[in-house]
């Protein structure tokens, strides 16, 4: 394209952007620009058509604006940084985007793997997001949250008249004065309650989950089990506590909490573990301690780690 053509294209693009703005009002200036050269209208039309087609390749999804994550240094675990002020502060500081086109009051908060974030909702409820998590909140309804993927711990200010509700996949949880943790990855959901009570799917199964009870819902169905209350959301204190948990689940938790790429050999994946793993951002030190604890060994693989059967004491 020659210089004049490129210049016009650039100007036309400026008008595409301006006229696309919902607040645009200077149509007289736009008219004047078009009148100056009859070749401008077709260029504008073509660019507007190109703009319309962009929706095909840029679907709506949350955006992360980088905020300094906890250093992956050698100093062990640091608790989540608290962001005060709820919706507005989150919109200014965090990884926020509008999740639904027609609902400007719904916004999304996303953490990268290894990054944690706390959201204080206006009603006094706290939500702590573990790494690799996507959630939606409502600017105008502090009693709503949706966990789209990842893990989050909820400390809910109870209000019987206006219960706090969390949507997880197709399921819904309603609090009854509560501290609870949810993990939602792929099609599976794990819930643990450490204080108070939640109701799982109050309009369908209506399963009450008091403190010390947990629920898992995956391809093998819905199961309710006993759990240690201090194991619930223990990632916040830098611990992961398990009772007969599959290694696949544990490695997903580690990857999310530490922000590492982690895979497991089929043999290691088939194993289960009972016990507590201390999180440590020094991954060499972490795997050096955690892998033998699970009866596994960990080796570096590319930019991540591989868990395999081996060297540790059998259990």
């Amino acid at each position, binding site marked *: 394209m020659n210089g004049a053509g490129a210049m016009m294209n*650039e100007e036309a*693009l*400026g008008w595409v952007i301006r006229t696309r703005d919902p607040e645009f009002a200077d149509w007289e200036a736009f*008219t004047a620009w078009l009148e100056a050269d009859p070749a401008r209208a077709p260029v504008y*039309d073509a660019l507007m*058509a190109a703009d319309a087609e*962009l929706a*095909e390749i*840029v679907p709506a999804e949350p955006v992360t604006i980088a905020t300094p994550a906890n250093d992956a240094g050698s100093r062990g675990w640091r608790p989540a940084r608290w962001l005060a002020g709820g919706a507005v502060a989150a919109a200014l500081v965090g990884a926020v985007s509008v999740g639904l086109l027609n609902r400007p009051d719904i916004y999304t908060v996303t953490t990268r793997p290894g990054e944690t974030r706390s959201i204080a909702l206006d009603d006094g409820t706290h939500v702590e997001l573990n790494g690799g998590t996507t959630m939606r909140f409502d600017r105008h309804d502090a009693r709503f949250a949706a966990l789209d993927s990842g893990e989050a711990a909820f400390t809910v200010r109870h209000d019987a008249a206006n219960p706090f509700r969390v949507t997880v996949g197709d399921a819904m949880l309603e609090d009854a004065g509560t501290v609870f943790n949810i993990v939602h990855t792929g099609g599976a959901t794990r819930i643990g309650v450490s204080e108070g009570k939640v109701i799982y799917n109050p309009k369908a199964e209506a399963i009450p989950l008091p403190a010390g009870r947990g629920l898992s819902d995956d391809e093998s169905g819905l199961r309710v089990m006993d759990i240690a209350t201090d194991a619930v959301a223990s990632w916040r204190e830098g611990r992961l506590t398990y009772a007969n948990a599959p290694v696949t689940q544990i490695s997903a938790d580690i990857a999310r909490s530490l922000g590492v790429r982690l895979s497991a050999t089929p043999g290691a994946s088939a194993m289960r573990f009972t016990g507590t793993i201390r999180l440590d951002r020094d991954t060499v030190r972490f795997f050096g301690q955690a892998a033998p604890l699970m009866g596994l060994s960990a080796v570096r693989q590319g930019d991540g780690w591989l868990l395999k059967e081996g060297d540790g004491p059998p259990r």
Partner: protein
Amino acid sequence: MATGLSAIFLHNRPALMRFLRARGAGDESEDLLQDMWMKLEEKDLGPIADPLPYLYRMANNLMLDRYRSAIRRERREQDWAEGAGGVMADPSEDIAIDERLILSERLEEARAALRSLGPRVELVFRRFRIEGVGQRLIAEELGVSLTTVEKDLQKAYRAMIALKQKMDTE
């Protein structure tokens, strides 16, 4: 009965006519204005905050529709001439696997292209183009100047339109 928007339409008819001519409507400008008038008369739109910009936008959208249907007609005729127009594809049919693969590759490519522009440019572009938020509001949200938002948008648009054009010629 000319009230509200209709009255504003009548009052600004010459300016709208001038706009449509400048937009390339030529002899059809009169007809397009007549279409607009009919639409305004049959719909009770209620009070509108900025009636004149609303009318201009309506006229601009008419022109965009006209352009789009002209392009579609052109493509159909071209397909026909190339012998591909014999059987109409069922629009409800699922997208073929390889097409879906191409689509997901393109989404990935677009995501990477947008990301490479930096987080602020990406956020500004998504807020503006995908979520329909105005530039002034975006500038306020991010605590940057309006000029910065404008520049970010120009940058993102240039990159994304160039990418789309490249994909279309592949």
